[in-house]
C-alpha cells in the first residue's frame, strides 16, 4: 500500500519578521546569514521535490506569523490558476511557488500595519496542521461530494509535519505544544523539526522525540536545502533504511515552580501536578492544603535531599560517572547542540530551557 499511495507532508513555517531580520544580519555576529528570500527559494525547491517524488504526494503549507497563523497552500483545495502559463516552468511547481510567495507577501504587508508585537503563533499553526491532517486522513463524513469525485482520502500513509522554526521557545505555549504533540502521537503523525535560526528549542526537541521524527539544529544555514532533502524528504517508512539522524540527548527533567531550580527529585501536588523543590504546606497553584503528616514525613526524608536538589552541579558530576563513554559516542547530529550559538555550557542550555518550561506552567496556571 505504501508503494501505491503518496504521502502527506504539512510544513509549518515560522515567519516571525523580527527573527528573520536578525537572521539576515551580515557575518561578524552571524556566521551564516540567511535572509528570508533565500530561505523561501530553498524551501520551495524542497517542496517541489516532495511533489515531484511521487504523483500522489500531497502538500499543505502553514505560516505562523505574530498573532496569526495562515494556511498558505494546500493541494486538496488548489487556488485557481490565474497566471499565464510560462513555457519555461512546470505548471504544478509554478502554482505552488507563486501561491506561497504571494500569500507570504500579502501577510507581511498586513503585518506592517499592525504595530504591537504579538507573540508568534507557532502553536496555532501546528494545531491547524493537525486538524488538516485529521481531515485528509479520516474519511470525510459530512461532505459526500468528496467521495463522488472518486478520490479516496482515507489511504494516505504516514502523514508528517515539518516544523521550520526560527524563534526561541515561548513559555506560554508549553501546555498547548505538549497537547499538540500528544495528539500527533495519537494520529500517528511524525513531527520533524528543523531549527533554522535562534537557540535550541526544548519543546520542539521533545516534539520530534515523542513522535519519532528527527530534530535538526541547523549549524550551516547556507546548506539548508541539503539538510532538508537529506533528512526530511524521505517518508518515515523509508527512513529506517536511510538512517536519518535522530537525537540522543533530550532533557526530561523538570524545574520547580517556586524557584525555577532544575530538580532531580521534586515534590508534586497531587491535584494540579505543580512541582516544588521542597515540601510546602500549601500548593501555590491551586491552594490545596497538604496534611501535616506528609510534611513531617517528607521533611524527615529530606536530609538526603540537599545533595540532590542542588541538582545542576550534581547531575553534571554524576552523569559522567554513570556513563563514562557517552561523551565520545554521542556526536551524531548534536555535536552542534552541545555548543549552542550563545556559547553556553551544556547544563546552562538545559537550565534555560526547562526554567522556561516551568514558568510556562506557572503562567498557564
Amino acid at each position, binding site marked *: 500500500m505504501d508503494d501505491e499511495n503518496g504521502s502527506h507532508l504539512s510544513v509549518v513555517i515560522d515567519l516571525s519578521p523580527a527573527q528573520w531580520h536578525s537572521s539576515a544580519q551580515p557575518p561578524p555576529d552571524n556566521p551564516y546569514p540567511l535572509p528570508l528570500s533565500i530561505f523561501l527559494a530553498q524551501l520551495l525547491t524542497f517542496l517541489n521535490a516532495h511533489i515531484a517524488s511521487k504523483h500522489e504526494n500531497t502538500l499543505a503549507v502553514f505560516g505562523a506569523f505574530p498573532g496569526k*497563523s495562515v494556511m498558505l497552500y494546500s493541494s486538496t*483545495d488548489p487556488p485557481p490558476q490565474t497566471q499565464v502559463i510560462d513555457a519555461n516552468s512546470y505548471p504544478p511547481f509554478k502554482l505552488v511557488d507563486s501561491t506561497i510567495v504571494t500569500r507570504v507577501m500579502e501577510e507581511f504587508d498586513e503585518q506592517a500595519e499592525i504595530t504591537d508585537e504579538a507573540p508568534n503563533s507557532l502553536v*496555532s499553526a501546528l*494545531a*491547524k496542521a*493537525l*486538524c*488538516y491532517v*485529521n*481531515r485528509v486522513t*479520516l474519511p470525510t*463524513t*459530512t*461532505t*459526500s461530494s468528496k467521495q463522488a469525485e472518486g478520490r479516496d482520502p482515507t489511504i494516505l500513509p504516514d502523514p508528517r509535519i515539518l516544523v521550520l522554526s526560527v524563534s526561541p521557545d515561548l513559555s506560554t*505555549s*508549553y*501546555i*498547548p505544544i505538549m497537547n*499538540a*504533540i*500528544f*495528539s500527533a502521537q495519537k*494520529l500517528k503523525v511524525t513531527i520533524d523539526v528543523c531549527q533554522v535560526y535562534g537557540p535550541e528549542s526544548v519543546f520542539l526537541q*521533545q516534539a520530534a522525540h*515523542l513522535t519519532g521524527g528527527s530534530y535538526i539544529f541547523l549549524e550551516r544555514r547556507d546548506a539548508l536545502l541539503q539538510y532538508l532533502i537529506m533528512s526530511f524528504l524521505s517518508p518515515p517508512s523509508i527512513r529506517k533504511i536511510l538512517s536519518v539522524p535522530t537525537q*540522543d*540527548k533530550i532533557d*526530561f527533567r*523538570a524545574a520547580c515552580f517556586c524557584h525555577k531550580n532544575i530538580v*532531580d*527529585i*521534586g*515534590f*508534586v*501536588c*497531587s*491535584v*494540579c*501536578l505543580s512541582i516544588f523543590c521542597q*515540601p510546602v504546606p500549601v500548593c501555590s497553584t*491551586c*491552594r*490545596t*492544603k*497538604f*496534611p501535616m503528616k506528609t510534611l513531617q514525613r*517528607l521533611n524527615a*526524608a529530606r536530609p*538526603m535531599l540537599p545533595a*540532590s536538589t542542588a541538582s545542576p552541579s550534581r547531575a553534571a558530576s554524576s*552523569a559522567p560517572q*554513570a*556513563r*563514562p563513554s557517552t561523551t565520545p*559516542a*554521542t556526536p551524531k547530529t548534536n555535536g552542534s547542540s552541545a555548543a549552542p550559538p550563545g556559547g553556553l555550557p551544556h547544563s546552562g542550555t538545559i537550565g534555560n530551557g*526547562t526554567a522556561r*518550561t516551568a514558568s510556562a506552567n506557572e503562567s*498557564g496556571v
Partner: protein
Amino acid sequence: MPPRRDNDKFIQEDSDSDISIDDGVDVVKNVKGKGKATDAQRKRDKGKSKTKDTQAYTWEASYTRSWESVQEDEAGSLQSSVDDWMARGRRRRLLAPSTAIRRTIIRHLVLLLDLSSSMMDRDMRPTRFDLMLQYAREFIAEWFDQNPLGQIGVVGMRAGIGERIGEMSGNPQEVLKSIADRHKLEPTGEPSLQNSIEMARSSMSHLPTHSSREIVIIFGSLTTCDPGNIHETLDSCVRAKIRISVVALAAEMKICRDLCEKTGGQFGVALNEGHFRDLLFELVPPPAQQALTRPAGGAATGTRAANPSADLMMMGFPTRLPDTSPPSLCVCHSEIKSEGFLCPRCLAKVCDVPTDCDICGLMIVSSPHLARSYHHLFPVKAYEAVLSEDQIPPDAPKTCHACARPFLTAPTATHGGDGLSPLGRYRCPNCQNDFCSECDIFVHDVVHCCPGCGK
C-alpha cells in the same frame, strides 16, 4: 434486568467529560445540590421501572419507531441522515455539563478477568473469553492514553483461585504482553471473587492515599466459590478505599452490586457486545474524587479533617541514557540494555517511565508525562454553534479556520437543534473564529488546543 444503574452518589460527577480544578465554593454547592439531584434521579428510576412493566425488556424501548427518525435526502440517499445522527451524538457528548470537580490523576487499577469455564459461553461472539481479551486490550491502550501516570495490574480468576497474570506496571506494552497469550489464559473451573479481590487488594495495600485504588472486574459466571465470608473482604476494601467496578456478562448478582455500591464503583450488565464495550470504556476517564475533598468546609467533618486525597508526592525526574551508552543490566528485567533511565535517588537503571523505582521505591516520571495530564486541568472552551446566517459577518471566511474545509452556504433542514449548527459552523468564544463540526470534535477530544487562539 436494568441495563445499568449508577451509584447515586457518583452519577453527577461521572457523567461529564471534562474536568477543572474545583474551588471550595463550587464543591459546597455541589454537595448541597446533590440531595435534590438524587431525588430527581430516584424519580426517574421510578419512571423507568413503570415503563418496564409495560414492556418485556427495557432495551426494546430504545427501538420504538426508529425508522421515523431516518429520512432520505433529495438524492434518495440515507448518508446525510446517518451523518447527522452521528454529529448529533458527538455534539451531545461535548455539551455534557462540566461541573467543577476534582479527578484523580494518579490511578492504580487491577483488572480482574474471569477465566472460569462460563467464559467459554458463546452468547457473545466469538466467545465471551475472546471478546473479553479483545476489549481488555483496547481498554488498556485507551486507559494509558488518558491516564499516563497510572498503573495497571492484571489478576485472573480461575479454578477457584486468584492468579496473578501481570504485575502492576505503568508500561502499556508490558500489561498488554501479559494478556497477549490466549493459551496461557485458557478458562477452566469456577471463579473465586474473594480470593482474587484479596490478591488485588494486597497488591495495592502499599499505595499512598493520594493515588486511587481501583479494581475492575469482568465477570462472566453466576457463581463464586470462596473460602470465607466475602463480606469481610468487602469491608476491608471499603476501609482501604478501593473502588470496585463490575462489568457482568451474564446477569446481575447481588454480591457484585454490593461490591460496587459500597465501594463507590459502577456496576453494569452487558446486553450485547457493543454495550459491553461501552460499559468497560466508561471506566477509562479518571474518576471524580470521592466527595471528601472539601478544602473550604473540610473542618466541619471532624473525622476527615485532613484532606486525605490531596497530598504532596515525592517524584524523581530521571536522566535518560542514550542508545549509544554502554550496555548495563536494568533493575526491572535484569536484561542488558543500552538505553534506559537512571533513578535520581539510587542511580538504578530502569527500562521505562513512569514507574516506581525497583530499588528505592521513588516514583519516577518524565516531565512530558506530567504535561500529558495538564489538558484535564485546562480544557478548551466549548465552541458555540452558529445558529443563523445573521451571526456571520459579511467578510467572514468561507472555510473552516482550522482545516480549510468549505462551509455550507445555505442552512440545511436536517441539521439544527441539540446544539447543532444548521450552517455547520462552530465559533470559539475566545477568538471568534469559525470551525467545522469535524474540527470542533477533534479539537476538544484530541488536540485540546484551539487553532485560532493557540490556547
